[in-house]
């Protein structure tokens, strides 16, 4: 199966990993470019509900902010309060 072989190649060869990262970078840049284009008001391609819908690339910013907040807050809550040893209920 080519997908599995490809993944194996990326994982075992650092230069392949670098290449893959580069593809993702290009993909990201393309997304932002397309996002800027579709935000041109005359094209009427984006429906505006809130003021931030005007900002190109807002979703990218919101995506990484969400990830950061979720990981940091969840882990903090976990360590402070929620995560318990596995025999917590068996005492």
């Amino acid at each position, binding site marked *: 199966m080519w997908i599995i072989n490809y993944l194996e190649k990326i994982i075992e060869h650092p230069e392949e990993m670098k290449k893959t990262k580069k593809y993702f970078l290009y993909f990201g840049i393309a997304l932002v470019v397309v996002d800027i284009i579709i935000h041109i008001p005359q094209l009427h391609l984006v429906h505006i509900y809130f003021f931030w819908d005007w900002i190109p690339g807002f979703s990218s910013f*919101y995506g990484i902010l969400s*990830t950061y907040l979720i*990981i940091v807050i969840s*882990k903090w*809550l976990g360590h402070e309060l929620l995560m*318990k040893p596995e025999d917590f209920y068996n005492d």
Partner: protein
Amino acid sequence: MIDLWIHPGFLFFLAAAALPFVKTQWKSIFKLTVPVVGFLSLLLVSHGSHGVLSLMGQTEMIFGRVDKLSLVFGYVITIATLVGMVFSLHVKEDKEHMAGLVYAGSALGTVFAGDLLTVFLFWEIMAFSSALLVFYAPWKDAAVKGMRYLYVHIFGGLLLLAGIFIHVGETGTTVFDALPHEGVGPMLILCGFLLNAAVPPFSAWLPDAYPESTITGVVFMSALTTKTAVYVLLRGFAGAEILVPLGVFMALYGVVYAVIENDIRRLLAYHIISQVGYMVAGAGMGSEMAVNGATSHAFAHILYKGLLMMGMSSVMLMTGLRKLTDLGGLYKYMPWTFMLYMIGGFAISGFPFFSGFVSKSMVISAAQELHRPWVAMLLTLASAGTFLHTGLKLPYYVFFWKDWDQKKIEAKDPPKNMIWGMALAAFACTFIGLFPGALYQALPFDSDYHPYTWGHVIGAYQILLLTGVGFFMLLKMLDPDETISMDTDWTYRKAIHGFTWFVKKPVVWWETRAVEVYKSHLIEPVKKFSRIGWTIDTWVFDGVVNFAGWSTRIESKILEMFDMHLIDGAVTSAPTIIEASAKRLRKLQTGFIQNYTLAMIVGVVVLGIVALIVI
């Protein structure tokens, strides 16, 4: 056209009863035919009320209220049953399939119920039949967990029943349609519904029980109970404002727990709570688009969550491991499981061209149209969290992370039927993503919603890509810990421990003290008292009685002797004495001595009797 109504729920019940009698070589075909026939029967049925049963002329039980809302849930339940049956074909014992069929049948019964009594009837069957899927699990403590699950649902069922009684008492009707959003009766009904929808704080039963169900039973578990609850919320409480904050809170709550969870199936179970949050919020917003969004999200969710659960169940079955900390590097050894799982992961994360995208975006768009920025933004944040843990964290730590030691546990893809079950669900996820029109047509309200706009697609890809970037940047923070997560079940699980402790420690202490006090202050004095009593009894009363007895005997002896020697002697010698002394006595007395003697004897006997009675 003939008005054909075969209740698919009753069909499933009959099939469950018939299954043990089907010949072994026909069993597989039978198991697959039943859900297909159920699905086809729904395609043929006409809208309206079927199967109405009059209860003593007082009230009616409506078993078949068929409209677009109930039909779309009916379709997906029968499809999920088919997927579950394919996935579990290799299981030889009938009991799991029978429980699964009864469970799915009762879910269908609830969905097509037109009155509250019928809802309650099937609600309870659903609770008991689903608990069986936990009881049948081979792991340790399955029975304990099954009982805990059952207790929570019995509690929820009682809330529902109490609410129904109060509501029917007030309004005089059992019809199940949009219910009032205030009053004790409807609020109790709502609480019963919210418990099954796993809305915090009534949610802990779900991650407690689902990961403990059997390998194949989890497909039914993840599909039926919560989504049936979403259906009844949409039917009874669409537009109830309280559901909006509850739903948003759920969506985030599940995400937080999914980040810290170490058990693979429990992580997915927490994630069910997060996903049902979208549906509950959709029900709360109540607009046509929101209800459509919640319905389509339930439809899509049943399929991709089933797929994800099947993937992780396969990992569990083949490796015998269930903790992220123990797993890793499986992608080479379980390639089909990995790839099919990833389709589920893409679908749930809302990748364009998969099912989650066309349903989740509808709920968020509904929030935007109603101009509720907080709802829209927090649900979008939760969807980033969805990709983070279901699409990235879970597959990363199960299939990559570290090398798999194939020598230690030989891992390979599961039996073919399990792969086919996953493939069927993966096909459905992709099909709905590519052709959302088929699903949209079945929704309760007509809609002209278009998910594939430039804004949606580009926005979705940006969020997903940057979530991926954030994941790899913060990877070290995400490494799993060997812990379990405390949830609201703490209250009743620790409460039981607390009760045991209370009984073991304070109660026993108090009991010991009480016994000591009882001994020293009650038993001992009583003993002492009784000893004194005994002494008095022995020496005084017995003494008196014995004394009386002895004295009577001595007395009688004396009397006997007195009688024999003295009186008899006196009597026999009396004539002589009389004769001898008569001459003298005649001078003194003229009476007879016998009279005097007799009077003496009578006097002594009377004295003896008096002494006996008195003493």
